[in-house]
């Protein structure tokens, strides 16, 4: 397990460092078209080959990682914060507040927000930079993608409220805000974090799917989303396995994130919280 965690941290660190230093280490600017070498195989000049327009795939992957690794967690953070606020409020207050929040959650979960995303693109000025457009897209995704998580967090609140140590804590005379801060919140850390990690890949992929509608990252900016879309062109993959690099990197990063967060679910937070109390 320890080796695995070290490995995971290494992967994450190396990926993050490579992405952050993309301008320094990328062999070429991401938009530079080497028009004489379209669809080239990996070589010394192009370590991962080039795309149809002769752009260096490695450089595009590095820059794409930069954008996606920065923005998807931001969107996930936003979504998780909203979900936590809504879920905790619903679970703690109960009654009408809970009913109201749950109704909103259900609404948010069921409405076709695709149209809102399309409308936002229409309202945005035509000449916004690629970075602005992609940031707005991710923020919107975050602002809309919290409903499922809110329900799970609210359930977690309910089950923590009922759990033995809460009853014990109450019996010890811990009440109100103190009970909330010392007992409830620490015990919600795990489910809230789980929702956070869970939503990162969701946002990464949502951006990829939106690209088809012209709402994601637009040319020439690369992102994991539009690099992954390239794979839908499945029939060329067998001949050009290096094109799988973005997918492999994505899976590796996600696995590492998983290994690094909650390494052993059996170490209960309940016990620790009670011990601290």
């Amino acid at each position, binding site marked *: 397990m320890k080796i695995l965690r070290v490995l995971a941290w290494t992967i994450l660190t190396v990926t993050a460092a490579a992405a952050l230093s993309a301008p320094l280490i990328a062999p070429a600017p991401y938009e530079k078209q080497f028009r004489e070498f379209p669809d080239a195989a990996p070589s010394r000049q192009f370590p991962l080959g080039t795309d149809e327009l002769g752009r260096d795939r490695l450089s595009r992957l590095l820059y794409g990682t930069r954008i996606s690794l920065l923005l998807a967690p931001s969107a996930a953070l936003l979504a998780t914060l909203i979900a936590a606020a809504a879920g905790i409020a619903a679970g703690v207050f109960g009654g009408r507040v809970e*009913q109201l929040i*749950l*109704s909103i959650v*259900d*609404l948010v*979960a*069921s*409405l*076709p*927000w*695709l*149209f*809102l995303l*399309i*409308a936002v*693109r*229409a309202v945005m000025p035509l000449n916004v930079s690629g970075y602005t457009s992609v940031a707005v897209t991710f923020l919107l995704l975050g602002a809309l993608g919290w409903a*499922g998580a809110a*329900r*799970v967090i*609210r*359930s*977690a609140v*309910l*089950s923590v409220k*009922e*759990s*033995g*140590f809460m009853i014990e804590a109450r019996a010890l005379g811990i009440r109100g805000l103190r009970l909330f801060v010392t007992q409830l919140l620490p015990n919600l850390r*795990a*489910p809230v974090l*789980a929702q956070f*990690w*869970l939503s990162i*890949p*969701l946002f*990464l*992929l949502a951006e*990829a*799917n939106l690209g088809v509608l012209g709402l994601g990252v637009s040319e020439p900016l690369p992102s994991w989303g539009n690099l*992954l*879309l390239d*794979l*839908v062109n*499945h029939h060329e993959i067998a001949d050009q396995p290096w094109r799988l690099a973005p*997918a492999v990197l*994505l*899976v590796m990063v*996600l*696995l590492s994130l*998983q290994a690094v967060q*909650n390494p052993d*679910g*059996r*170490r*209960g*937070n*309940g*016990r620790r919280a*009670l011990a601290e109390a």
Partner: protein
Amino acid sequence: MRPLAKGSLRIIATLLIAGFCGVLLVRYSPGFGTDERELNAHLSGESISALRVAADTNPARMYWSWLRAAAHGNFGESESLNTPVATLLSDRFPLTLRSSLAGLLTAWVAALLLATISRGFGRRVADWTGTALTEVLLASPAGLIAVLLFLFLDGSSLAAAAPAIGIALAVFPHLYRNQRQLLGEAAGRPHVLSAHARGIRPLRVFLREILPGAMPPLVALAGTSVTLALGAAIPIETICDSPGIGQLAWKAATSRDLELLLPLILAVTAVTLIANFAADLVIGDRKVAA
């Protein structure tokens, strides 16, 4: 009986609001009411003006007249498909129901099994299998999964099951991650630990201590997973070429077909609301029983 009546009232009110939000979203999305024939060079100026004459576009009035017609059982006609909406929905519903149910069931059984073995009994191999599967699936766009399914299953005896398999694959990672978390947490509770310490058999601890502790959020998860399955049905049915509700929803969205979208939005909202409400009722009953 009172929670049921109150809950029903809440569901109906939420549905009405959802419908109106849906009308607003579609009505104000760019390209609403456009017609590609407007660019047909054969048409005269008068014909193009005729195409552009729109019916009432006030969203409140649109919604009101739709509701009134719907109350009389008239769900209108889809503009993009030139077919009564009621016919379209009743033709396509059974297919999606079948594939969603089959997909959900498969995903639940698989996820619960893996999560139980890994969290309830601390089997690392099961955990790694589940986690690896989850991460790979989470990293694959639903569209990509559907394309692959289509490639491998089309023409085989499993072709008809492709949407169900797709839905199962799309729902599984969410179920597994949540279940793993929930069961793990329940397994870490003090009374479980002390039960282990007392030398009670793991199966008994799991059934008596762990599972009941994780039950309420698991039931809530069941509600959420219905919505997840419906969401996954859209890209999967579209790509697997399966003429169900999901494919219909995508066609309606791309053509801004409000008449068709509105009942779909209401249906999805209703399913979500009812599933979640039922989950809440179950949790509530348990509370009373406890």
